[in-house]
């Protein structure tokens, strides 16, 4: 709108001229001109403040994303070291690979140590030998055990296997590739060994499949988010199953059935207030009611889902009500006019027409629930859980809690894991929100 500006240009000048004619003072004209320029400068400044505010918000957004991606992208790759492992049947004391017992008793960790010593024959002292074996991940013994179980004919042969390296070595190798090697807990001696392995092209970066297939672990290189993702899935499933029907039902009652009385007012006030209650309070409720009173187990998706249901209900009810309100009364009247009952009006006409809006609200509520951490801490979902949960009553972690736990871990390698987990979480949230927007665009009806 430029008309506003024009008007404000002309008006003071006109006023100025008339004053001029009456008093004939030149000083006043100068003063007014100055004042006008000042006012325009103020206008420009004000506009700039607005732009700067928006710029600040966007800058924070960009900063946050670049920081997280910059820290986390390297976690999608893992360093592996190749080792020529001789599956010595005599050393392992295995005669029959299919025997679980023999596999369990065999000393695979020792086999890896032996291989390391064979690879670096100059290493003599005990402590150096121990240090040498820390290049490969502490879980490597299980890895080669499983590999042998899959390939029984390997027994007695020599195989070249790519093993995961320890998290410190992983950090060293990745930072070295960027040009600035981060030593951390890697000392000179270990670094020289790693350099010689690199010179022999025995180390390389691969896509990190462990991150997506493993549960939590104390060892960063063996830690993955599968457990947390499945835990989140179970929790959201419970939340969705409970909150969507209840939320929609409550919205229908309030919009279509509720009489204008105190009880209805009370329900409305309650819903609006619950939407503003801090999420941690819902955690306290869950702890006191579900865990203490009903003695449900801690740290399970079932209880997490119940708490998140109570938390997301107001969001879903409010958006569902808006969707129902948007359905024009003429539709209801037409249905009633041809003899439909109240329930038929609601189920056959209002609900289908309001469904896109309700679904949008529900997806946004689910996205909220997916990112929520505080109430889940209260009901004990912070336990260290390695296994991938198989049902809603198995102990589980969820994605945001996993992020919280890893962010608290001292190992440097967990920083990139945390950032990568955040990237995964944000991806889910972006997908859900985009879905909500698309749904609204595709199915929204203008009356």
């Amino acid at each position, binding site marked *: 709108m430029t008309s506003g500006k024009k008007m404000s240009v002309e*008006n003071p000048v006109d006023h100025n001229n008339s004053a001029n004619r009456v008093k004939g003072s030149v000083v006043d004209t100068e003063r007014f001109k100055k004042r006008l320029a000042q006012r325009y400068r103020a206008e420009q400044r004000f506009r700039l403040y607005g732009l700067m505010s928006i710029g600040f918000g966007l800058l924070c957004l960009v900063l946050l994303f670049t920081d997280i991606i910059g820290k986390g992208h390297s976690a999608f790759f893992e360093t592996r070291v190749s080792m020529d492992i001789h599956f010595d049947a005599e050393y392992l004391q295995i005669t029959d690979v299919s025997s679980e017992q023999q596999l369990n008793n065999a000393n695979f960790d020792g086999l890896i140590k032996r291989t390391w010593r064979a690879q670096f024959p100059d290493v003599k002292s005990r402590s150096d030998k121990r240090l040498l074996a820390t290049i490969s991940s502490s879980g490597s013994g299980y890895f080669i055990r499983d590999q042998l179980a899959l390939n029984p004919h390997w027994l007695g042969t020599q195989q070249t296997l790519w093993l995961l390296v320890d998290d410190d070595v992983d950090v060293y190798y990745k930072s070295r590739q960027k040009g600035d090697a981060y030593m951390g807990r890697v000392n000179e001696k270990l670094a020289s060994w790693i350099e010689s392995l690199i010179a022999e092209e025995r180390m390389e970066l691969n896509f990190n499949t462990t991150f997506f297939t493993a549960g939590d672990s104390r060892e960063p290189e063996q830690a993955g988010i599968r457990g947390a993702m499945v835990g989140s899935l179970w929790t959201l499933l419970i939340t969705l199953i409970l909150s969507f029907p209840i939320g929609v039902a*409550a919205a229908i009652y309030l919009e279509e059935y509720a009489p204008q009385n105190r009880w209805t007012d009370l329900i409305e006030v309650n819903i609006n207030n619950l939407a503003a209650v801090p*999420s941690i309070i819902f955690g306290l409720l869950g702890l006191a009611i579900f865990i203490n009173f009903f003695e449900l187990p801690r740290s399970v998706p079932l209880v997490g889902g119940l708490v998140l249901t109570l938390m997301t209900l107001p969001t879903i009810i409010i958006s569902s009500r808006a969707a129902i309100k948007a359905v024009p009364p003429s539709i209801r009247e037409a249905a009633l006019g041809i003899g439909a009952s109240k329930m038929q009006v609601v189920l056959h006409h209002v609900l289908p027409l309001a469904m896109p809006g309700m679904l949008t609200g529900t997806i946004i509520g689910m996205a909220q629930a997916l990112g929520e951490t*505080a109430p889940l*801490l209260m009901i004990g979902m912070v336990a260290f859980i390695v296994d991938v949960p198989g049902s809603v009553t198995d102990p589980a972690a969820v994605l945001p809690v996993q992020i919280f736990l890893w962010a608290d871990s001292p190992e440097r390698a967990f920083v990139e894991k945390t950032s990568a987990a955040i990237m995964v979480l944000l991806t889910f949230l972006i997908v859900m929100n985009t879905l909500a927007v698309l749904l609204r665009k595709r199915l929204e009806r203008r009356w």
Partner: protein
Amino acid sequence: METSNLLLALVMVIAVSYAFGRGRSISVVAPLGGIKTLNSLPFYHGMLTALWCAIPSLFLTLLWLLFEPKIIETLVISQIIIDGEQVSSDKLSLMLNTVENILAGTLLGIEPSQALIDAAEHLRSLRQTSQMAMTVSTLSLAMMGGLWAMTKISPNYGARVKVEKTFKIVLLACSCIAILTTIGIVLSVLFESLRFFKSIPATDFLFGLQWSPQTAIRADQVGGSGAFGAVPLFAGTMLISFIAMLVAVPVGLMAAIYLSEYASTRFRTYIKPLIEILAGIPTVVYGFFAALTVAPAIREAGSMVGLSPSSESALAAGLVMGVMIIPFVSSLSDDVINAVPQSLRDGSLGLGATRSETIKQVVIPAALPGIVSGVLLAASRAIGETMIVVMAAGLAAKLTANPLESVTTVTVQIVTLLVGDQEFDSPKTLAAFALGLMLFTVTLGLNFIAQHVVKKYREQYD
């Protein structure tokens, strides 16, 4: 049958009963001239049958699941303790745990006594019996309900009215969950807080200047005597929230003004959702950002100018929290600014005011109640925010107004007191509920004031 399988079976029985009810209503009126002679449509007859089938049996299942563990536990206990011997509750729960472990086969190391092995066997058989009894009784109840409803189907039977009434009651019940939640919150924090105030006087809690909740768990343990003066926590919360509001209110408000008064429609459609992404980012992500990026940056910047900020400074947590709240303030303000009628602006511009003068002297005053209420809501959100402060603010309760020092907040203390192993009757854990009560009251109060401000001072233009 397992509970999940039982529920599945129940759902199937209900579906079948719907089909039967519907079919029967059609067959009843077939000789009388088709469904036009029915009082209610076949759908309603089927639905009523299904309801009769579902409601009693689901209710029974619920009761069963609620009370079964308690009853079985009592039975097992009565078996372990034979001649009325006195056993402390700790020991009893240990024994029950052992019994559970024997049953699961996860008892390692120690060899359990014969009595406990017997108890485990007893527990197993009790559970089996109960599971069987539940399956049989719920399924038969479901069938009986369905059959009874089917016998009542006749051409003149008013199934529709009954179904619609039930439908309405179910809807009402769903909407009452909001009230139940509020009651649940109030009761849970209030009761535990009252227990807390029994051991620590409320005045000590509200006005005490010392906060060190570490108490001895056992009587013979060396530990702090525990001090529960919450003033440093309130002060820390206020400090961090204040910093957050200092960031969020000017930025959010100016962004809203620019977007609604200056920006072109195109700019607005692209930029507004981008700003709103900030509100959708989980708080745990902000916490990570605050702790690992912002706090070290502040420490470095501070040491460059000769200050020594704490690595868990209130400033870092407050700044990041402010960024989080920007879209909250901006979208609320945006709504109220847009609600100011265009005629007011036109009037002001017509008198020769510039755009910014119009905004400052006409639009903002007109929108002020809404803006104030938005700011209050944002403040209540800042006070209740948890993850950012848990990850980026400190644990030590200090009474300071220096934003470079580390302070702790109410929510941080609730989390630290309740995460991990806990005993439910020590003042240490109960203190968390007292803090929760304070938090709930304050946020609710802010909410009410915000609503009141809008109601009382809003100008009606149209």
